[in-house]
């Protein structure tokens, strides 16, 4: 147990998003350290699939490759109320049981349109954080929608 904690910390120190090998000790736990959420490896995998469905791999990386599911977990864990966290965890459970892991695009669109859908709260939270993680990812900010740290200019009459 101690060794495990030590190794975990090592991964933390390595910086950025904490990622463990998928074969991690065979323990059925999420791959990042969470303070409040209790998420197992299957649920994390399901979340990755949902995130991948929201932002799929095309000619550029999708949600899973960019680890957006881990970003969603991190944000829900640190920046949401307990009520939100309950909705989130319950959403993952319900999805797992009722939908048998089905994450097809048409199904997601259906949830988004139906505010009364039992998974609506969960889905919108997940979608918002996924989009935030995507647009604020190093990949997108460096390669797609470029973020300028030092613009060095202002033009109030730039031609469109």
């Amino acid at each position, binding site marked *: 147990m101690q060794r495990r904690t030590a190794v975990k910390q090592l991964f933390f120190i390595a910086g950025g998003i904490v990622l463990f090998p998928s074969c991690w000790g065979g323990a059925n736990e999420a791959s990042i350290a969470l303070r409040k959420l209790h998420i197992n490896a299957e649920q994390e995998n399901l979340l990755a699939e949902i995130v991948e*469905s*929201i*932002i*799929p791999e*095309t000619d*550029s990386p*999708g949600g899973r490759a960019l680890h957006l599911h881990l970003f969603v977990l*991190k*944000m829900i864990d*640190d*920046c*949401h*109320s307990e009520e939100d966290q309950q909705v989130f965890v319950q959403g993952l459970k319900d999805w797992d049981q009722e939908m048998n892991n089905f994450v097809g*695009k048409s199904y*997601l*669109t259906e949830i*988004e349109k139906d505010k009364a859908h039992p998974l609506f709260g969960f889905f919108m939270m997940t*979608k918002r954080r996924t*989009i*935030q*993680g*995507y*647009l*604020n*990812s*190093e990949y*997108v*900010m460096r390669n*797609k*929608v470029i*973020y300028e*740290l*030092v*613009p*060095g*200019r*202002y*033009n*109030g*009459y*730039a*031609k*469109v």
Partner: protein
Amino acid sequence: MANINIDSIKECTFDAIVIGSGISGGWATKELCEKGLRTLVLERGRDVKHVKDYPTTNMYPYEFEHRLEMSYEDKQKNPIANRCYAYREDSQHFFVKDDEHPYIQEKEFDWIRGYQVGGKSLLWARQVQRWSDFDFEGPARDGFAVDWPIRYRDLAPWYDHVERFIGVAGNRDGVAELPDGAFLPSYPLNAVEDHFKRVVASKYANRHVVSARCAHLSQPAPIHLEQGRVQCQNRVLCQRGCPFGGYFSSNASTLPWAEKTGNMTLRPFSVVESILYDEQRGKAVGVRVIDANTKEATEFYSRVIFVNASTLNSNLILLNSISSRFPNGLGNDNGLLGKYIGFHSYTAVISGEYEGELEYRTDGRNPAGGGYIPRFRNIYKQETDFLRGWAATFNANRNPYTDTSGVGASLKDQLLHPKLGNWRVGSHMMGETIPKESNKVWLDAIKKDQWGVPLLHIDVAYDDNDWKIRTDYFEQMTAMFEAAGFQNIKTRNDDRRPGNDIHEMGGVRMGHDPQTSLLNKWNQLHTCENVFVTDGACMTSTATQNPSLTYMALTARAVDYAFTLMKKGVL
């Protein structure tokens, strides 16, 4: 032993002491040191060295654990700090956390503080406008507070002096109620801001939209390069501290400048508990300092003392400086110390859209933020059912927007290809408040903080005049927006609490008469002549301008006067 005592007293004795290293304390320090005075600067917080102590300054958004968002836990723990617009993951280390420094709110009041070397000069919004005589003459004309003991002509050369050193981008607009200054090139208005300016000018005789004047180096002069500051790079990440010194702060400018004279001693972690008054000599002789870490008390001595601890803390220190001569606080014979606190009412915003000038967009970022509308109500005569009036910001942007509907490849495509829509326009109100005796602060008789300093009670609220000003702002701005062809106009009450404007002023006001004011026209305590208060606490009224520039000018003027008296041997 006797010799040791004399030596240790010598070590603790300076020509001048400055309490506080923020925007006005930094100026007091610079001016005192330049005059050859050995100056001790006391700062209650830690040291923050320019660039070296700006840990987040070069970070990309994705390098922040929560992409700049504060955690839920922090929001629960520090609701006051979290209500400040600038408190985020990149700047939170420069803010006081709620539970570290408690105070007692008689009515809801957000006291936003920055306890470190440089104070809130690292965090300020950098807007700098001069006052005019329409502001200085306000109390006398309209019969509130007391008459200011100075007029624009008294301060004008000191505004010049300060502006040249800090660097102010602006236009010489020729507007009487917003005097021109010593400006660097302005940040020009954009296409829609210019459109609004033209419409307002053609429709209203005395209303103006000008480029916001800001303390940024749009084009540094030699005096700025000499400070080690270079041109602003339009990052607009100022609250992190600027590695270019593109905007003015004590850290980038006045303090290193003062240090170069060899006359400055900067002492962080020094909580000033009180000013020491010598009954025999009839003047202040020094200050009592509690070490923030060890809680150990030390005394320092000097010929003059500048109080620049930030408005409410300057009030607190004076209230806590008790002697037989001054049982109710230093200089407080009339019982008015801590009273007539003013602030700015930021309680209204308006927004809209504009479907014109669509051949243009903006490119890069504007550190000035856009346009500024000086107060135009009740300028030449009283013309409304409320006193004074409001100034306002005005800005237009055409930032690309992102369609976040749907999921899958189409959503991804939308996210990667933001669209240019209509222009969005917006404004927020900056209302003058009327200082009243009932808006006040005082010390708790029993409760103390961990340094043994009494807790401050704050009892400050809006009044009917503030709500009338807000109604007028909504009516007039709506009419101006409509005249400019803006659509989808929305007015919104901003429910922010007093204090959240971070423009608290007064409590130690200037005036002609020792019966009705604490400070004279040189910012000297009427009844303790070697103590000068030159931060926001000295303000007799609030006007509508962002106040820091005026604090800096008052400070430089007061130091000059103090030095004259010291040379004459009066102080």
